[in-house]
């Protein structure tokens, strides 16, 4: 039987999520054996035509050309999975959505007329139908492997949607908010990183994006009671997942 064809695509991003695939050092040769890597520009100069069984898409849409490109990729892909905060929420570059993009261009480039870009950085799912969204900035290697394995086996991937807060409780980690008074997005952020920030005595900074039905209003009220100012609250929600609806709405309340 022919091996399933895998394609990896890049849009506006830092390459960190694709790199996570290459960081599966122990599994990489096995993955390459189980799948036909048909398109993965960062890793191979061999390019095979579609259609593709699985497309992994990194990065956000920020140009008119990329809006067309993602449609063509969708048409060629049986299963399309967006990986990482750029692809699922627009990434850090979606901070432009809250500002005037022409001001941004002028601040960086001497000849803004050479630059063509859209006013908004948007998620892949805003443009085409997406079969699964894997969160994280970057995605977790373990979740990525689970997702690829599950997709190949035709089963549902085991990727929990619970909060980071639940994850800390399960691991018996000391709560940084209670013990240190540190601002933490754990109550409203989806788990999956492996408790990284709280176990390093810092507050969760939300790189896995909002959990299902987060109560951000309640969290903000609590943080405000601990002394957080409106600009601090706004900045907290406005980072790698600034464009995710729940975080965007909450950050605007503190504008």
């Amino acid at each position, binding site marked *: 039987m022919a091996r399933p064809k895998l394609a990896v695509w*890049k849009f*506006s*991003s*830092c*390459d*960190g*999520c*694709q*790199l*996570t695939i*290459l*960081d599966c*050092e*122990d599994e*990489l*040769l096995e993955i*390459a054996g189980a799948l036909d*890597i048909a398109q993965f*520009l*960062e*890793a*191979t*100069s*061999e*390019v095979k035509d579609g259609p593709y069984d699985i497309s992994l898409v990194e990065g956000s849409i*920020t140009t008119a050309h*990329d809006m067309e490109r993602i449609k063509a990729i969708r048409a060629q892909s049986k299963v399309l999975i967006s990986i990482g905060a750029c692809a699922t929420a627009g*990434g*850090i*570059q979606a*901070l*432009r959505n809250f*500002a005037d*993009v022409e*001001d*941004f*261009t002028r*601040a*960086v*480039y*001497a*000849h803004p007329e*050479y*630059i063509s*870009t859209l006013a908004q950085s948007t998620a892949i799912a805003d443009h085409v139908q997406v079969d699964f969204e894997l969160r994280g*900035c*970057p995605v977790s290697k373990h979740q990525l492997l689970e997702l690829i394995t599950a997709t190949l086996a035709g089963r549902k991937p085991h990727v929990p949607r619970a909060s980071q807060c639940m994850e800390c409780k399960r691991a018996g980690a000391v709560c940084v908010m209670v013990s240190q008074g540190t601002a933490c997005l754990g109550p409203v952020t989806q788990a999956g*990183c492996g408790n*990284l*920030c709280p*176990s*390093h*005595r*810092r507050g969760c*900074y939300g*790189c896995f994006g909002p959990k299902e039905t987060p109560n951000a209003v309640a969290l903000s009220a609590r943080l405000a009671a601990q002394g957080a100012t409106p600009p*601090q609250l706004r*900045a907290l929600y406005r*980072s*790698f997942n600034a464009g995710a609806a729940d975080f965007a709405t909450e950050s605007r309340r503190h504008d």
Partner: protein
Amino acid sequence: MTERVIEVNELARVEGEGALYVRLNGRQVERVEFKIHEPPRFFEALLRGRDAMEVPDITSRICGICPIAYIMSSSQAVEDATGVAVTPDIHALRRMLYCGEWIQSHVLHAAMLHAPDFLNLHDAIAIAQVNPDLVKKALRLKKAGNMLMEVIGGRAVHPVNTRVGGFYKAPSRQAIAAMIPELDWGAQAAREVALAFAGFTFPQDETDYIFVSLIHDTLYPICEGRIGSNRGLDIPASGFNDHFVEEHVARSNALQGRMRDGSPYLVGPLARYANNYHLLSEAARQTARDCGLGEVERNPYKSILVRMVEVQYAFEEAARLARAYQEPSPAFIEIPHRAGVGHACTEAPRGICYHRYEVDAQRRVVMAQIVPPTSQNQPQIEADLARVVAANLDMDDAALQWRCEQTIRNYDPCISCATHFLKLTVERV
């Protein structure tokens, strides 16, 4: 006259989106462009108004392959702006972490992205079919670099444990000591991979580069020292803008760096090595000699060997620092709310990464300037391409295109950093 065009619209085995365009009119090279068209992400603009403490976490997202370079340059620049000096123990831990980034980034490039060029193969998977042990060894080396990133930084891509002023939490002595056997193995294995790569056939090419890197009195520079060159330049990071300029050209979404007099210059492993050879360990210098490298190496294709020599050094250096490790206490220095302007320059795997921030009395960023290595190398890459094309006019298009792509990969260009990379078009008119 026949026109000949060589064009690559999507370069492979580079980080980010780039393209190449070469046009020949007969034997005349008319146009050479290394284009970077990764869409802009406006980091300098989106940092404005943010608390300077957030800068390292945000700038790390410029590049998933070299986040430490952005974290370190930005942290040090904000410390400079607010008048803070970190302790020697914090600095030593930063250097050990940075060794991890050099290792994983260099091994990824040398073994997986660049080596296939010399073997006429498409990728490392194809190398594994002919030489599985070599690829397995390279993967283990890369993993050992990521181990340093995870144990010290908490995560291989976009570490969470670093902050302006130091670290959130100092790793325990046991956790650091547990890495030593693998680091010792890595130093030896890096040498073996270097010697294996030394058997490649290297295209003949040399030029008299202006090599710009950090320089230092006692340490092979990583995140310390002044900016120097093989032409006698010796300036502090704060002098960067007096000697280098960035210009914006139509074909590129990256700014290009040049010396004030307009000359291109080279940053990265070849420059660091040439300017600091005497500061490498004796074992790393021995490997360099055994690979046939001179004390100064001007053949850009041999950068793959210099990278592996630096990997060996980074393993030895990380092991030395691990053996001497003292948990920094405190793990970080508090950053005051104080206005100022700060500069820093550190050695990203691909070369110097310069940052400058203006911070107000509320510690907010007023102005940010970030100069990544690939935008500095872009004019030199184009100069190399012009030279290489002119010297190889008799090659057919496919061979010439391959050679051009290989020439670009000599630089391990990080287009995501430079904002975008290359598309190759060769036109033969």
